[in-house]
C-alpha cells in the first residue's frame, strides 16, 4: 500500500503543480516582455474569479456569460492599468514598478469584495465534484481539468514566444526598449499586449482555482506560490514554469503526506519556500532561466 500512497500523492501533486504553472505563467509573461516583476498577479487571479463568481451568484448570469464578462473586464482592466499606472513608469528604475504592483495588489485586495461582497462564493464551471477513481488512485476532477487547461495554454504561450513573430518581438522588447524602438517596434503596444495576456491567463487561473477552492480574497495568496515556482523554473521560461510548478506541487503533496503527520501539520505551506531559498543559493537564475551573458 505504501507505494500506492506515494503514487497518489505524486499524481495529485503533479496536477496541482500544473495549476500553479497556470498562475505563474501570467507572471512570466510580464517579466519576459517588460522586465517588470508583477506582485499583483495573485490579485489579478482573485479579481477575475470574483467578477465571474459574482456575476454568476449575485446576478444569476449563466456561467458562460459570466466568464465572458470576466474576460472583457480583465482585458479592459489591464489595458487601463497599463496605460494609466505602468506606462508612465517606462524607463524608471525597476523598483518603482515593483512598488507600484505591490500597491496595486493591496488596493485590489481591499477593493475586490466591495462590489460583490466578501463572502466565499462557489464557482461552478460545470466540472463534477465526485472524485475520479482509477484503480487505487483518487483524483479531483477539477484538478484534472485545470491541469489540462494549463497544459493547453502553456503550449500555446510557449509556441507564441519561441516561434511567432509577435512573441519574438516581445522578447526583443524585454531585452532592450531602445533598440526595439530603432527596429520600428511599437514598444508601448507590446507592453499593453503583455498585460492583456497576463489578465487573460489570470482569468483562466481564477476559473480553475476558484472552482477548486472557492472564490474569496484568500485566492490572492496563490500569487505568493508563484515565487517559488518561477524562481525554481527561471523567471523568463515557459518550460521552467511547468517544471517549477510540478516540482512545487509534488513537494507540497509529499510534505503533506509524509511530514505533516509526524510534526502535526504546516510543513506543506513552507516547503516550497525552503526550496526557493535553496535554489536562490545555488542557481539564482533557476533551472531554465537564461543566465545573464557577460563577456569579460
Amino acid at each position, binding site marked *: 500500500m505504501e507505494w500506492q500512497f506515494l503514487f497518489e500523492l505524486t499524481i495529485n501533486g503533479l496536477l496541482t503543480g500544473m495549476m500553479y504553472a497556470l498562475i505563474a505563467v501570467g507572471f512570466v509573461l510580464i517579466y519576459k516582455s517588460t522586465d517588470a516583476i508583477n506582485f499583483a498577479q495573485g490579485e489579478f487571479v482573485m479579481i477575475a474569479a470574483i467578477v465571474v463568481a459574482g456575476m454568476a451568484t449575485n446576478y444569476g448570469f449563466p456561467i458562460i456569460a459570466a466568464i465572458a464578462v470576466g474576460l472583457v473586464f480583465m482585458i479592459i482592466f489591464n489595458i487601463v492599468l497599463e496605460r494609466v499606472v505602468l506606462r508612465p513608469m517606462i524607463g524608471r528604475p525597476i523598483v518603482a514598478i515593483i512598488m507600484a504592483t505591490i500597491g496595486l495588489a493591496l488596493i485590489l485586495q481591499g477593493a475586490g469584495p466591495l462590489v460583490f461582497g466578501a463572502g466565499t462564493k462557489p464557482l461552478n464551471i460545470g466540472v463534477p465534484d465526485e472524485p475520479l477513481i482509477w484503480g487505487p488512485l483518487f483524483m479531483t476532477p477539477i484538478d484534472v481539468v485545470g491541469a489540462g487547461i494549463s497544459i493547453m495554454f502553456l503550449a500555446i504561450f510557449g509556441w*507564441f514566444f519561441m516561434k511567432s513573430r509577435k512573441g*519574438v518581438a516581445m*522578447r526583443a522588447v524585454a*531585452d532592450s526598449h531602445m*533598440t526595439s524602438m*530603432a*527596429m*520600428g*517596434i511599437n514598444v508601448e503596444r507590446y507592453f499593453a499586449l503583455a498585460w492583456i495576456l497576463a489578465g487573460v491567463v489570470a482569468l483562466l487561473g481564477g476559473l480553475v482555482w476558484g472552482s477548486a477552492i472557492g472564490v474569496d480574497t484568500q485566492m490572492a495568496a496563490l500569487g505568493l506560490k508563484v515565487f517559488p515556482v518561477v524562481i525554481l523554473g527561471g523567471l523568463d521560461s515557459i518550460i521552467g514554469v511547468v517544471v517549477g510548478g510540478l516540482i512545487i506541487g509534488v513537494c507540497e503533496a509529499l510534505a503533506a503526506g509524509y511530514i505533516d503527520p509526524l510534526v502535526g501539520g504546516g510543513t506543506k505551506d513552507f516547503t516550497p519556500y525552503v526550496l526557493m531559498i535553496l535554489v536562490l543559493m545555488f542557481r539564482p537564475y533557476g533551472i531554465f532561466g537564461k543566465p545573464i551573458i557577460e*563577456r569579460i
Partner: protein
Amino acid sequence: MTDTAGSGGSVKLKLDGVAKNFGGVRAVSGVSAEVKEGEIFSIIGPNGAGKTTILNMTSGFYHPDEGSINFEGTDISQTLPSKIASLGISRTFQNIALFRGLTVLENLMLGRHVLMKTGVLAAFAYWGPAQREEVEHRERVEEIIDFLKLTDLRKTPAGALAYGLQKRVELGRALASEPRLLLLDEPMAGMNQEEKEDMVRYVLDVNQEWGTTIALIEHDMGVVMDISDHVMVMDMGERISFGTPDEVRGDPRVIEAYLGTTDHKEVA
C-alpha cells in the same frame, strides 16, 4: 570611387539649422547638411562634438529644439523612432545594442519588423498567407547572413559573440529592414585591423551593390578619407567644415579642431 560622388544626386537627408540643448549644454547648434542619394557621408570630430546627437536626432531618439530634419522630402524632426524606422532609416549604435538573449537569426528577423504586416491576432495566424510572408522574410534574412558570412552563427545568442562579430550582426540587422538610409555610429570602433578591413568591405559593398545611402560616424581617419564621398567635420556642436575628403583634409579649421591650436596662435 562612385560616379554619384559630388554630382547632382537627389538629396536623401537634409538637416537645416538643427540645434539641440541638454539642459545648459548646447550639444548641437545650427548644423545644416545634405546627404545625397547613394553616397557615403561621414561625420567626424573630436569627442563631444555632437556627432551622435545628430544621428540620434535623425533616427528620432531626440527631437531637435531648432531647425528641421528632412528625409526624402518628409519632415521627420518630431517623428518617433519606431515611425522613422518604418520610413526607411535604420541604424547601428556606438555601444552595440543587439538583443543579447536572442539568436543572430532572431535579431535579423526583428530587423525586418518594419516590413512585416502587423495585427494583434496575426501572431496566432501562422498558417496560410502569414506563413508565406514569414518564409519570404526568412529568405531575405538568409541572404544577408550569407553576405556577412554569419552562416554558422545563426542560432547563437548574439550576446555570446565576439565583439567584432556583434558589430557585424548589428550591421546585418540594420540591413534587414532594407533601409534607404543607413546610419552607422562608429562601425569600426574598438576593432582590430582585420575586423576593420572586413567592416569597410561590407560597408562599401552595401553602398555599391545595393545602392544604399550611408551616413556614418567614425574616428579612424584613414577609413573615413578612403570611403567617404563627403565629410562633415564637427566641433563643439558646430559644423566647422564640409566637403570631399581632400577638401576637408586641407581645411585649417579642421586641423585646429584636432590639434587643439595652430602654430601661429601658439606663437602669438
